[in-house]
C-alpha cells in the first residue's frame, strides 16, 4: 500500500501506478495530450506536468510512478504557467481552423486552450504549411494540425503492429505519413484516427457532417462483423449512423477495432436495402403487403407439412441473427412443424471443431478470455490467421509477441509474419502432420507430471506419431524447425492455442483435433476457436443444429426433449434431422421447402452450382434478409428483416460471452418496413396457428431461453449490462468429455508440395454479403483480387497489374492479380466476397463422414494470365 497526497487529498494506492493513474482513479483531472491508456508511455507533450514536493523541477505525471509519502500539486500557478507555455508552443504552428475542423468540440487541444486561457501569438513568422492530403479513400491527413504527440504512430507500431505510418522529417518539418506519402497500404483499422487528439488524422466517412454536440445519442453495442464481438459506440443523428466511435476501456476489445467494424457500417444505410416483402408471381418477385406475405408463408408451409410431413421442411438459421432469433427459429421449425432439419454455417467447421475438443475436455473447452492471450507464455497458432479472420483477437497475439512471449505459427499466417518467434510453414493441407511432429517432440522433451487425466495420458502415449524426417517429407518443415518450436513451447507455464475452420473442415479433422488436444493437454493450454461470423457460437448454443437442443443438450436426451415439449407446447421429433449440405443434396426429393433466415447459401457455400440448382428444385423457399442476395433472388417469398443496428438482442462471441446488441435506429432512412427476424417468425407462427410463438419483445425470448436452456438458466438482460456474461452464464454445463479415441493413421497427402493451388481466404476488408454494400469497404478494396507472391506470379507468367483466370471443374473467374511479398510460394489466395467472383464458386466439396462438414475440393485447376476484357 502506497500513500500519497495530491492537492491536499490523502490517497492510498494498491500496487504500482503512475501519478496520473492514481489521480484519475481519485477523480483528480490532469490534462494530457500524448498520453493514452492504450498506448506505451511517451511523456512528450509536457501537458501533465505537476509539482512534486522535494523535486526541484516539474515532472510528467504520466511517467512518474507514485512513491510512498509523495506530495503532489496538479494546479499550482507554476504548473499552470508551464502548461500555458506548452500550449503556446503548440499553437505557434497549429492553424486555428476550429470552425471548419471536424474535431472541434472533442479536440483535446481546443479544450485545453480554453481551459488555460486563449494564448496570444507572439511570433511574426508565418505558420508551417502542409497541403491537406486526400489521396486516401478513408483517411484525410492535415499535418498542419498535427501536434506530434505520436499517439497514431505508437498505436500503429505498438498496438496494431502494422508499422504503416511513421514520423517523417525532423524539427518543425516533422509530420506523420504512410510509406507512400499518399494512399495508405495498411490494415485500415482506423485506430490511428481514433487516438488522434486533434484534427490531424480524420475519417472521410463523416467529413464536414459530424459535430459531436449535434448527435442525438450514442449507443453502445456489439460489432456485426465477426465472432470477436467487439464493443463499439454508434453516434446517431436522425435516422442514420454518423460514425462508429471506439469505447476505450470497455469490451473484449478494450476500444480497439478493425477496418470492418470501424468503417463497414455503411451497409445499413444502403439504398439497396429491401423495403417490402416480395412474392414470386408469374416467375417474378413482386412487392406485397406483410399480411399477404406472412399468410402465404404460413399456409404454404402448413400445406407442405401436411402433404409430406414436417421433415420435408429444412431451415438454415442465421449467423448474423441474435440468439433470440435463432432460438425462435429452431423452436418454430421443431415444435411448430416437427422438423429437425435445422443447421447453419457453424457446420462449415466451428461446430465440428468444438465437438471434437469438447469430446476430450468437456463442454466449454474453448470458452476462454481473449485478453488472456498476451498473458500466456506461449501462443500456438494452428493453421489459421487470426489477424485476418478475427482481427482484434489477432492483436492480442501480436501483443503477446511484443511482450516477448513465444508465438509459434503452423501453416500460413501472413498477418503474424512480424510477430512470431517460430514458424512451421507446412504446406496447405498438411498442417495436421506438422502438429504430429510437434507433439512427438514435446512428448520426447517435456517432463510429464502425473496428470489429472490418466486415461487421456495413456491415450496420448499410445498415439503413433511419424518421425520428424517423415514429417519433413510430407509438410516441407525441416526437423530443426520443429525441434526449435517444441523447445520454445515446452517451458511455457501458460499457453494459448488458436485454431480455425481449416483444421476442422478436413477429412482429417479428428486426427487434427486429437493432436491439438494432446498438445493442449501437455501444455495446459487454453483453446480459442476462430469464429467468422458474429453469432456463430450462438447458433450452436441455441440449438440450431439437427441433433442439439438449446443449451447444447442432445436431441436424443429424452428428459430434456420432454422439458422442451412442455415449454413449447408441441411434440418434438426424436430423430435428428439433416445437416446443412445434406438438405441441399436432398432438395426436391425428401426436402420440399426451405426456410432461410439471414444467410446466403447460394453464395457462401462450396459447390455453388449444385446449391443453386437445389434451391431451384424446391417447392417453396422463404428467405429473410436485408438485401436481395443470391439466395433471396431464388426465393418464393422474400421478407425484409432489420439490420443489426435496428434491433435488440444478444450475440455470443467466440469466448462464449453473451453480449447485448442495442437498438440504435428505429428504422433506416431508406427503409420503410423491415421487421426483426423473430417478429417475422412470430407473425407466420400466429397465422399458422402455432402454439407459443407470440412474443411482444426480444426480451420475452431471452426470458424463455433462460427457462429452457440449462446453460442460460436465470440469465437476464440486466446481467449483460457491462461486458456481457461469460460461459456458463448462470447455468450448468453438460458433464462429458474424457473420450479420446485412438489416433487415426496419418494419411499421405494427395497433392504434391509444389503444385500451384488456389486457397480460399478471409479478406481483412470484407465479410461477404454485407460488406458488398458498404461504400467505405468498397473504397478500400473495390473488387476481387487474387493475391500471390512474386515467385508464384513469375511461375504463372502474371505481370504486376495483370489479370488471372482461375478455372476448376466447378466454375471459373477472372480476378485482378495482386502481387505481395511474404506469401507462400505456389498459392493463389482469393476471397469469397464479390458476387460471381466469390472464390467459393471454384470449390466443390466432400462431406466428412462423421460430422458432415463440407471439405473443400478443387479439381481440374487451371491458373493462367487473362488478357481479354473482364465482361
Amino acid at each position, binding site marked *: 500500500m502506497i500513500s500519497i497526497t495530491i492537492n491536499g487529498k490523502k490517497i492510498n494506492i494498491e500496487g504500482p501506478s503512475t501519478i496520473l493513474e492514481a489521480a484519475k482513479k481519485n477523480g483528480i483531472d490532469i490534462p494530457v495530450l500524448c498520453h493514452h491508456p492504450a498506448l506505451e508511455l511517451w511523456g512528450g507533450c509536457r501537458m501533465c506536468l505537476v509539482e512534486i514536493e522535494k523535486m526541484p523541477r516539474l515532472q510528467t505525471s504520466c511517467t512518474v510512478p507514485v512513491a510512498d509519502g509523495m506530495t503532489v500539486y496538479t494546479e499550482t500557478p507554476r504548473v499552470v504557467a508551464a502548461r500555458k507555455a506548452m500550449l503556446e508552443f503548440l499553437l505557434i504552428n497549429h492553424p486555428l481552423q476550429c470552425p471548419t475542423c471536424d474535431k472541434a468540440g472533442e479536440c483535446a487541444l481546443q479544450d485545453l486552450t480554453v481551459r488555460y486561457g486563449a494564448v496570444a501569438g507572439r511570433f511574426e513568422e508565418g505558420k508551417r504549411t502542409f497541403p491537406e492530403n486526400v489521396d486516401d479513400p478513408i483517411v484525410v491527413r492535415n499535418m498542419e494540425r498535427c501536434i506530434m504527440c505520436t499517439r497514431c504512430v505508437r498505436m500503429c507500431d505498438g498496438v496494431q503492429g502494422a*508499422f*504503416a505510418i*511513421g514520423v*517523417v*522529417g*525532423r524539427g518543425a518539418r516533422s509530420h506523420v505519413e504512410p*510509406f507512400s506519402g499518399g494512399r495508405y497500404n495498411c490494415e485500415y483499422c482506423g485506430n490511428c484516427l481514433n487516438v488522434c487528439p486533434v484534427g490531424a488524422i480524420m475519417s472521410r466517412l463523416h467529413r464536414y457532417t459530424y459535430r459531436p454536440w449535434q448527435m442525438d445519442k450514442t449507443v453502445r453495442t456489439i460489432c456485426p462483423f465477426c465472432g470477436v464481438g467487439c464493443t463499439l459506440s454508434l453516434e446517431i443523428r436522425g435516422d442514420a449512423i454518423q460514425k462508429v466511435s471506439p469505447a476505450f476501456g470497455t469490451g473484449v476489445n478494450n476500444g480497439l477495432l478493425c477496418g470492418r467494424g470501424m468503417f463497414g457500417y455503411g451497409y445499413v444505410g444502403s439504398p439497396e436495402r429491401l423495403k417490402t416483402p416480395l412474392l414470386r408471381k408469374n416467375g417474378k418477385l413482386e412487392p406485397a403487403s406483410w399480411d399477404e406475405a406472412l399468410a402465404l408463408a404460413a399456409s404454404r408451409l402448413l400445406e407442405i407439412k401436411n402433404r409430406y410431413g414436417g421433415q420435408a421442411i429444412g431451415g438454415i438459421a442465421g449467423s448474423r441473427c441474435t440468439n433470440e432469433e435463432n432460438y425462435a427459429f429452431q423452436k418454430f421449425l421443431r415444435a411448430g412443424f416437427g422438423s429437425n432439419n435445422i443447421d447453419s454455417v457453424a457446420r462449415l467447421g466451428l461446430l465440428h471443431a468444438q465437438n471434437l475438443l469438447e469430446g476430450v475436455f468437456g463442454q466449454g473447452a474453448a470458452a476462454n478470455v481473449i485478453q488472456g492471450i498476451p498473458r500466456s507464455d506461449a501462443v500456438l497458432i494452428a493453421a489459421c490467421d487470426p489477424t485476418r479472420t478475427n482481427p482484434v483477437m489477432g492483436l492480442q497475439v501480436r501483443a503477446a509477441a511484443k511482450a516477448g512471449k513465444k508465438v509459434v505459427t503452423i501453416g500460413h499466417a501472413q498477418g503474424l509474419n*512480424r510477430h512470431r518467434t517460430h514458424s512451421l510453414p507446412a504446406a496447405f493441407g498438411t498442417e495436421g502432420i506438422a502438429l504430429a511432429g510437434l507433439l512427438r517432440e514435446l512428448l520426447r522433451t517435456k517432463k510429464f507430471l502425473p496428470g489429472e487425466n490418466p486415461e487421456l495420458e495413456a491415450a496420448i502415449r499410445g498415439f503413433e506419431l511419424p518421425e520428424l524426417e517423415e514429417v519433413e517429407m510430407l509438410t516441407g518443415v525441416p526437423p530443426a524447425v520443429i525441434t526449435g518450436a517444441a523447445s520454445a513451447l515446452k517451458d511455457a507455464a501458460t499457453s494459448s492455442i488458436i485454431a480455425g475452420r481449416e483444421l476442422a473442415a478436413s477429412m482429417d479433422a479428428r486426427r487434427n483435433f486429437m493432436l491439438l488436444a494432446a498438445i493442449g493437454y501437455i501444455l495446459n493450454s487454453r483453446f480459442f476457436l476462430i469464429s467468422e461470423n458474429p453469432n456463430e457460437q450462438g447458433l450452436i448454443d441455441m440449438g440450431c443444429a439437427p441433433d442439439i437442443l438449446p443449451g447444447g443438450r442432445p436431441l436424443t436426451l429424452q428428459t430434456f426433449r420432454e422439458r422442451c415439449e412442455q415449454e413449447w407446447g408441441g411434440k418434438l421429433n426424436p430423430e435428428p434431422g439433416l445437416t446443412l449440405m445434406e438438405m441441399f443434396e436432398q432438395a426436391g426429393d425428401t426436402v420440399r421447402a426451405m426456410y432461410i433466415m439471414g444467410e446466403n447459401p447460394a453464395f457462401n457455400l462450396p459447390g455453388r452450382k449444385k446449391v443453386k440448382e437445389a434451391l431451384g428444385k424446391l417447392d417453396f423457399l422463404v428467405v429473410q434478409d436485408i438485401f436481395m442476395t443470391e439466395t433471396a433472388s431464388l426465393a418464393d417469398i422474400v421478407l425484409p428483416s432489420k439490420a443489426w443496428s435496428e434491433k435488440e438482442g444478444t450475440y455470443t462471441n467466440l469466448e462464449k460471452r453473451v453480449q447485448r446488441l442495442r437498438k440504435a435506429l428505429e428504422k433506416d432512412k431508406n427503409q420503410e418496413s423491415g421487421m426483426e427476424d423473430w417478429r417475422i417468425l412470430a407473425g407466420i407462427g400466429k397465422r399458422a396457428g402455432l402454439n407459443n410463438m407470440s412474443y411482444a419483445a426480444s426480451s420475452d425470448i431471452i426470458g424463455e431461453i433462460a427457462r429452457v436452456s440449462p446453460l442460460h438458466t436465470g440469465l437476464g438482460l440486466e446481467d449483460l449490462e457491462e461486458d456481457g456474461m461469460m460461459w456458463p452464464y448462470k447455468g450448468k454445463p453438460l458433464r462429458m468429455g474424457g473420450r479420446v479415441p485412438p489416433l487415426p493413421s496419418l494419411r499421405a497427402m494427395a497433392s504434391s508440395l509444389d503444385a500451384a493451388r488456389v486457397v480460399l481466404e478471409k479478406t481483412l476488408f470484407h465479410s461477404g454479403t454485407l460488406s458488398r454494400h458498404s461504400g467505405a469497404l468498397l473504397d478500400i478494396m473495390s473488387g476481387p483480387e487474387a493475391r500471390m507472391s512474386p515467385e508464384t506470379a513469375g511461375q504463372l507468367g502474371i505481370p504486376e497489374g495483370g489479370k488471372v483466370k482461375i478455372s476448376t471443374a466447378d466454375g471459373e473467374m477472372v480476378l485482378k492479380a495482386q502481387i505481395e511479398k511474404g506469401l507462400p510460394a505456389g498459392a493463389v489466395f482469393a476471397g469469397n466476397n464479390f458476387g460471381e467472383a466469390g472464390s467459393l464458386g471454384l470449390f466443390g466439396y466432400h462431406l466428412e463422414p462423421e460430422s458432415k462438414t463440407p471439405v473443400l475440393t478443387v479439381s481440374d485447376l487451371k491458373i493462367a494470365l487473362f488478357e481479354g476484357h473482364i465482361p
Partner: protein
Amino acid sequence: MKNSFGPGALALLNEIKTKYPTGRAAIMPALYVAQEEFGWLMPEALEAVADCLELPEMTVRSTATFYSMYRHRKAGRNVIRICTNVSCMVLGARTLKGVLEGLYGVAPGGVSPDGRFSLEIADCIGACGSGPAMLVNDDLHTGLDAKKIIEVLENYK
C-alpha cells in the same frame, strides 16, 4: 531502375549486420550502402534496406528522413560540395559557383542536365587555410580558381 542490391553491396550489408545487435541498429550504415548503390534514397532503396534488415519499410523511412545528410533527392553521378563560408567566400567561392552554373548548368541543390554533377553548398569543410575549397564525392580539392576547378572536374565523368 534496379531495385535490389548487387552482390558487392549485399556482401557489405551482410558484414554490417554482423556488427550490430539488431536490424534497427544497422539502419544508418545500411542506408549509406543503399545510397552508394542507388545514387540516392529513393523509395526502392528504402524498401531494399527494409527487406535486407527485415524491418518495416516505414521504420527505415522515418530514420532516413530524420537525417539531412542522406540524399533524399536524385543526385548526379558526382556530388560537388562547395564551401561558401567566410574564408572561401572571401577568396572567391561565389565566382566558382557561377562557373559551375555556366559550364555544367548545375545550380545549388540541383543536378546538371546530363546527370554528371549535382551541386550542394557546404558550410565549412575544414579547409579554411587553403580556400576556396570543395569536396567532389569524398575527395578534397583546395586553392581553386575558375581554371583549376575545370581541370579538377574533368577527372570526374
